[in-house]
């Protein structure tokens, strides 16, 4: 994605958290400490714009573990670019999420 991306700080935090492997709602909330009700709209918006892909967990796995299938979020290629841009825009973010690039979309 080549267009200029600007994000609010909470959005950047959510992106970074997902980049670090926190892949579902409450996990992202817990790790970012974002206030009630902010994270989901961010996830919805990012997904709608194609920065995130929501994927249902394999039902077999969930069934075996005796729990409902989860919806995981992961960065898409544009999401990956967006995260990089966000890390440039907010330099201190990488201190909070040192491994933010770990689960970036594979090339």
């Amino acid at each position, binding site marked *: 994605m080549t267009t200029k991306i600007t994000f609010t700080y909470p959005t950047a935090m959510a992106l970074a958290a997902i980049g670090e492997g926190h892949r*579902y*709602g*409450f*996990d992202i909330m817990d790790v970012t400490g974002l206030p*009630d*009700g902010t994270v*989901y*709209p961010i996830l*919805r918006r990012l997904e*709608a714009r194609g920065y995130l892909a*929501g994927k*249902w*967990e394999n*039902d*077999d796995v*969930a*069934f075996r573990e*005796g*729990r*409902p*299938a*989860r*919806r995981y979020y992961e960065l898409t290629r544009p999401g990956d670019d967006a995260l990089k841009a966000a890390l440039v825009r907010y330099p201190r973010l990488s201190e909070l999420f040192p491994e933010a690039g770990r689960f970036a979309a594979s090339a």
Partner: protein
Amino acid sequence: MNPPNSPVTPAASRLPIALRRVLALGSWWVPRSRRQAWRREWEAELFHAAHTDASAEPPRRLLRRALWSHLDALWIFQEELTMTRLLADIRLAFRSLRRSPTFTVVAVLTLALGIGANTAIFSVVNGVLLKPLAYPDSDELLSFNFTAPGIGYPVIPFSDDFFLFVEERQKSLEAIAMYNQDNVNLVGDADPVRVSGARVTPSTFAVLRVPALLGRTLTERDAEVGAEPVAVIAHELWQERLGGDPDVLERTEDMDGVMRRIVGVMPPGFAFPNAETRIWKPYVIDEANLNVGNFSNPGLARMASGMTIDGAVDDAAAMLASLFEERPDDYPAALIEQAQFAPRIDSLKEVVVGDVRQALLVVLGTVGVVLLIACANVANLFLVRAEARQREVTLRAALGAGRGDLARFFLAESMILALAGGTVGVGLAAFGVRAFTTMAPVAIPRISEIGIDARVLGFTLLASLLTGLLFGMIPVLRRQARDLAGSLREGGRSVTTGQGLVSARNVLVVAQVALALVLLVGSGLMIRSFQALRTVDPGFDADGVLAVLVALPGPDYPDAEQRLAFWTEVRDRAAALPGVTAAGILNDIPMGWGRSGGSIEIEDFPSDIESGLLTLAEKKRVGAGGLETLRVELVEGRYLNDDDGAGRFRGAVVSQSLAQHWWPGQSAIGKRLKEDADEDWYEIVGVVGNVHYIDLEDPAEEVLYLPLIAGAEESPNVSANMTVLLRTNGPPSALVGLMRGVVKGVDPRMPIARSETMANLLSNNMARTSFTLVMLGIAAAAAMLLGAIGIYGVISYVVGQRTQEIGVRIALGASRGSVQKMVVRRGMMVCAVGVVVGVLGALAASSALGSLLYEVNPLDPFTYVVVVAALGATALLASWLPALRASGVDPVVALRSD
């Protein structure tokens, strides 16, 4: 294994039931297409929160997390609404409107006219009727007076005696005050001016709850006999007349020859009892010399909190009863009974607004009807469009657009049109309001409070939305009644159009014709009223007469001799002005600015002193030349001259109505009567024609004209306020400047209090009728035009649709005339139905005009016949034009056309 989109996974069923309920509730907001996925995701999240964490979450925290799902759901809801549905609809509507600019412009302008007219009139209604008066807690304020219908007085104000009694005994009021208008000649460094003023009891300011801006308001001490003369002035007077002098509170001003110290300045905009009042002087009650019979001060009160008007009336009635019972000498029982004395208490606002309410509501209703007609027209245009787009719409439906989608599609268009119309309409209304306030009759109270404020804008928005809904729903409702296959078939080549759509448009035209007829009947009735009023003979000839009011201050002119000398001098000098053919003086002119009446005593019919029963009449003081200048007809005898009041012989003139009342069938000349019991007799020397003093709509009053008396020892009588009347060949208003010079020439300290042409005073008296007439007339003309356009539109549309059929008819030998007749007949039939419905509506609605009408039966057959004929002629023209076109159809072209 679990199917991937099963509503609830087995594991999730292990979620506590409360959490699942919360989620189910939240999912209501999520659009159906996303609902299952949404629920699944949240179940998984909550399950995860409840189970995976080593330190399992306490239930309350879990519940709170579940509640967050609602925020998420709401967010999805609003996103869905704004992004996908509404925005898309609106964008689509904009695009389709832009593709047909003529339709859009016509529709927006039609709606703008309708909404603009409604906004303008509503802003008047808002300013005059709805807004509370500009005093704190103004709904507690009362106009407090009395009524004596038995002796012909609908309103009797307070006397000093009444006021003291009520002030002491009342239990329902927080405070009570009384006031009277008492204008002031303000003499200062600049030209002397006449300023509107009032004499008020100090409690007035407490009742109104308005403190002074500078200094103080009046106190009880100011109102004591012998107190230092003081005055409170208006901010406007301070700024304009005193140049905003910062030391205003140290000034003493010459008011009517009394030096009054200014003790306070009221805040800007404060004006009571009139919008023009600028000076307030204390009303001094001399308890030692009470005048029991002088009822001249309107009362003003503030209810105790929690009190109702009915409660205040009961309290007042009880007080009156005890007053009359305790003091039968002052208030003879027979007189009280004859008078049917009772309290008359209204909300102050009612009294301020007065009788303009009905006229305003009628006008508001009228413009509302015009808006309805405008709606019908736009709906008609809309249906034409719907027809033209039948294929597009059918295709959409065939591709799966549901009824809701189609409805939103039409409603988005209609809402955009209506809101655009509303926006343009507010602009029109701003002009309209300005025009209204400048041309409205003087009689409209609170006119300065009229303007476009938040409430008016809210009204406009609501009116626009309702309008959009109204005409947008019509094609939607029509569509609901049709089936897909039928539409597809009809959209193709066919001989005639869908009967359903035509009949929908017929209904609209019937409605338009009916509404237009109601408005036309209304304005027709107003025209008839106006005609009737115009034919009322006021009893004088107003053309070419100027009336100039001068008020002599008591301290400067303490005795009658001086006053008479002043008036005679002014009259003689005025008579000598170039172009003046006659001049005279009268203390109270017809249609004028005051009223003087009261009891009289007739020699032949002595009133019963014991019982105190009274003979009442209007009493006027008239100098020589007064009646002549007005050209009041001389029926018998002669007019008054200067000698009638000078010597021992006192002549008087009575109106024909008074003469006929007391001496029917015989001459009143030589009969004697007097003003008060202890006065000298006047002998009737002349009988003059009846003059309408108060209102053209009321029967002419019985009037007694008395001469100015100065010489006699007893009861000299020369009014301090008199009107000089001048008759001229040229335009009377040109004389005002000269008259100012004349008055100043006689007394350099004396201003002119008021001047007006008699013609203006007369037309002001008809202002309410003519104002209602003009407004109704404009509305009716607009309604008729819109109605004609509606008929024309439907008929020419039908002609367009039936071109093929008409071509066939002509090809088969139908004459042009018979084709024309066929088309016109169709238009006239629709119109006839509209007329029938409209006549019924008008019969029901004309009673709303009620008291606005003068000597016209609301069911006046003449009006109905003329209106129906006019509307019929218009409909004939509107359907004849398309008929011409139809008969010109070339069968070859028609048969080939699509």
